[in-house]
């Protein structure tokens, strides 16, 4: 007996997949943000050895397919280190690392966008390197970075769909399951695509709001 019709339970399944995708996206974005900013700080302080290593690692992660990184972590790491790794753990590690690499690139260019003269002025006023970073560089760099960051977040949301390949039951995997059972690819993949589209739109709108706020001081308020 085959259950080829859509049922009420499919909506529950869809919501579950949506929850897994959103949760993994949020978790890896946060972890990636922390690691990426830490890498960028290494560069800001010009830490010998670690700074160029971070740059090389970021370049390698940025220029290779996420799918291969995912396979390396999920299939490769357990063999190399003789340990067990669940698909969700592998997805967390890979996506966090990948996000961190892109955050690093954005953070570095944002820090560089702050003029050298400002750094020199801060130094003349006797601010320490950390104070300069905290009070002068960060507020301006944050406003500069938000545009690229919004693009990155929308992109990383789409990248989460790849974890379905290693067996995490996210939104795409739910789509694959429903597709195989109902054999109605057009309806299934349209619904899945629409859900991703709406999420991407939501992220872009949220980023635009924050950006407008950070840039408020630049806006012409009238005389």
């Amino acid at each position, binding site marked *: 007996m085959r259950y080829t019709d859509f049922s009420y339970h499919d909506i529950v399944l869809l919501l579950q997949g949506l929850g897994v995708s959103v949760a993994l996206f949020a978790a890896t974005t946060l972890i990636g943000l922390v690691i990426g900013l830490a890498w960028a700080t290494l560069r800001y302080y010009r830490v010998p050895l670690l700074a160029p290593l971070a740059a090389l690692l970021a*370049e*390698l992660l940025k*220029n*290779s*397919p*996420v*799918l*291969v*990184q995912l*396979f*390396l972590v999920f*299939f*490769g*790491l357990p*063999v*190399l*280190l*003789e340990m067990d790794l669940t698909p969700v753990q592998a997805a967390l590690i890979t996506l966090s690392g990948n996000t961190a690499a892109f955050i690093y690139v954005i953070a570095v260019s944002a820090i560089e966008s702050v003029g050298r003269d400002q750094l020199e002025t801060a130094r003349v006023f006797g601010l320490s390197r950390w104070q300069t970073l905290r009070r002068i560089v960060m507020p301006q760099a944050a406003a500069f970075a938000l545009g690229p960051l919004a693009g990155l977040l*929308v992109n990383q*949301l*789409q*990248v*989460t*769909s*790849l974890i*379905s*390949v290693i067996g995490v039951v996210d939104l*795409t995997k739910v*789509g*694959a399951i429903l*597709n195989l059972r109902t054999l109605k*690819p*057009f309806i299934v*993949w*349209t619904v*899945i*695509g629409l859900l*991703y*589209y709406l999420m*991407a*739109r939501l992220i872009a709108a949220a980023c635009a709001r924050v950006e407008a706020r950070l840039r408020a001081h630049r806006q012409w308020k009238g005389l």
Partner: protein
Amino acid sequence: MLSGECSLQFDLTSLTPYFGDLAAGARLTAFACALALAGSLILGILVALMRTAASTKAQRVANVYVDVFRNVPFIVQLFFLFYGLPEIGIELSALATGVLALSLAGGAFTSDAIRAGILAIEPGVLEAAQVSGLPRVAIYRRIVLPIALRSAVRPLGSVFVNLILTSSILSAITLNELTGSAKIVAADTFQPFEVYALLLVLYAVLTWLVSLAAGALHRRLNRNQL
């Protein structure tokens, strides 16, 4: 570096018998990417012209296309085509489906780069062409596209790099391109870490070379500017 503190050693020599398989996969990746590059360039030029056209209807249609293909994950687009097309009687091979999906997704990003190139053309140049009485087709073919494409080479290079990285997802529809053949090699040798680490470096070197080439081409084509 990679084997430093690990219990197992990092041994690439036992993979040498499989280099032929990997090379075959790489050739398929190159072939698919070349076709997809051509497809997305054609599509990207058309869509960019529509997005910069005077007609708001053409603009709207093109914007919807770009919006949809940029905001839906590639793997969902791929599955939509791979499972959906046979449903409406279009039987394509995995390779053809993959190239079609890559071209459609690449077209959206390509059109962005070309559109930026078109918008960067000085209005005076177009006005001069119109005043000289050139027909519209000639203005597009002789003036708009050469200038726009020339200034878009570097951004197009990064779109192409992304296309190569995205092509690894074609392994999900049974196509044994570079990533797909590496999967087989990893299963055969029981050395997944070595295989995928090698693959990662291969892709990184390949895309690095492509972006170097795009940069060089960009400088060469724009050598008379500024």
